[in-house]
């Protein structure tokens, strides 16, 4: 059986192509161009029967007095035998490659940024364009950023060469960074994302009660609405402690037209010690499920829209992060001003409140709830020049 199964719904994957570029353009600081730097990162996600690893290489260089270019090459190599795969399909391997190019142009206190991202895999292509403008105001205490992104995707099936569906996606963002005191900096982010097109997974199935089946249930293809609009508001505050350390708190409220509502909060502590910098972070996320999500539908085609993507189910996730960074070449070497090496691990725990583990022989609808633990490891070298 060669049928593969998406890791996530298309609506979630849609956003992937733009994430890295958005983050890279977010690195821009109005009034000054970002530092020239390069990063080589190895990433590993291991949990729930899924292993994803690969490199990410970033190069940023100022090419004129007021122009900085950035490029990023990113690879995901996926080996999946996730709970979805083992219960409805076969384990598979997949590779996704992504290129991003961006430019920042600085004029006085204004930074204009533009970027392009292309993501390619065997059954999914995504293209994203991003634009933003940042303006320093009030003696550089305030930075206002307006951003817009446009994405076009093509969804295919590996087992049907004639299958191709389109998606379009638009991002609207407002960011406000404010220095409040000599020790405190805060940001407010408002982001609206709209999707239109084929948003469900072409492989994924939903489960419905079927008295004619020996196990009491059967599967049928999921069917999502073809539009989605989401709104997110995020607040961040970072405070400099008296003994040279920093603490950061974050909160995000999210809601969308699929009735998913979530709260996300985190607290970080950053502590430098000689050439080392240590970071500890705890992150908590809680969400309701999409209105068309059910773990077990009462019958076939029971509702107009139906999905059993566990990422759209009610869930709580908690993450503990530990990171250590070590400064290298403090006196520089040839064209390199300084460098660092960083190791981090994020331990994710996800508890699903309405997604059941079908690998047991329990009575239908009373299977144990599924839970997932994953380790996210990053090792990266950075140089500034």
């Amino acid at each position, binding site marked *: 059986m060669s049928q593969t199964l998406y890791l996530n719904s298309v609506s979630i994957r849609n956003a992937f192509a733009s994430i890295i570029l958005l983050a890279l353009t977010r690195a821009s600081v109005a009034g000054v161009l970002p530092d020239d730097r390069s990063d080589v990162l190895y990433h590993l996600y291991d949990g729930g029967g899924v292993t994803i690893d690969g490199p990410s290489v970033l190069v940023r260089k100022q090419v004129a007095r007021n122009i900085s270019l950035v490029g990023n090459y990113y690879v995901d190599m996926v080996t999946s035998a996730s709970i979805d795969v083992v219960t409805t399909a076969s384990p598979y391997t997949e590779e996704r490659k992504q290129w991003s190019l961006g430019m920042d142009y600085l004029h006085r206190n204004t930074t204009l940024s533009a970027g392009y991202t292309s993501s390619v895999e065997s059954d999914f292509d995504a293209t994203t364009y991003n634009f933003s403008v940042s303006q320093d105001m009030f003696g550089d205490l305030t930075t206002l950023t307006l951003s817009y992104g446009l994405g076009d995707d093509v969804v295919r099936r590996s087992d049907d060469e004639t299958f191709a569906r389109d998606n379009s996606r638009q991002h609207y963002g407002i960011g406000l960074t404010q220095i409040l005191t000599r020790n405190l900096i805060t940001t407010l982010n408002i982001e609206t994302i709209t999707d239109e097109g084929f948003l469900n997974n072409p492989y994924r199935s939903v489960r419905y009660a079927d008295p004619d089946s020996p196990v009491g249930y059967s599967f049928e293809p999921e069917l999502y609405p073809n539009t989605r609009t989401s709104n997110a508001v995020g607040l961040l505050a970072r405070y400099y402690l008296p003994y040279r350390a920093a603490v950061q708190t974050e909160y995000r409220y999210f809601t969308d037209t699929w009735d998913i509502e979530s709260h996300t909060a985190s607290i970080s502590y950053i502590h430098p010690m000689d050439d080392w910098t240590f970071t500890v972070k705890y992150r908590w996320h809680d969400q309701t499920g999409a209105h068309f999500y059910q773990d077990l539908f009462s019958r076939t085609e029971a509702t107009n829209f139906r999905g059993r993507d566990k990422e759209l189910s009610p869930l709580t996730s908690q993450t503990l992060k530990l990171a250590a960074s070590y400064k290298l070449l403090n006196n520089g070497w040839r064209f390199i001003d300084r460098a660092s090496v960083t190791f981090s691990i994020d331990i994710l725990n996800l508890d699903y409140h309405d997604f059941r583990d079908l690998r047991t022989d329990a009575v239908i609808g009373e299977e144990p709830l599924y839970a997932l633990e994953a380790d996210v490891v990053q090792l990266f070298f*950075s140089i500034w020049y």
Partner: protein
Amino acid sequence: MKGRSLLRVLASLAMLGLLSACGSVEPWVKPYERDRLADPIMFLDGDPVSSAYLYHVYEAREGARGGEGSGGGGCGCN
């Protein structure tokens, strides 16, 4: 309707930006008082390649998206 509302908000904020250029606001944190904000431990996104990857992981594992991170801007230390 939501798109129109957002456009109004964007237009209002753009006007705010333009108006800010017409007047001068005395910075209550002077440039020489921003040494702590210029410390790398206060950078909101000191490692963009790493934070981009983690956003990728969270968006894959959760139903929410957007609104996290530094969202642009910096310490105004220049």
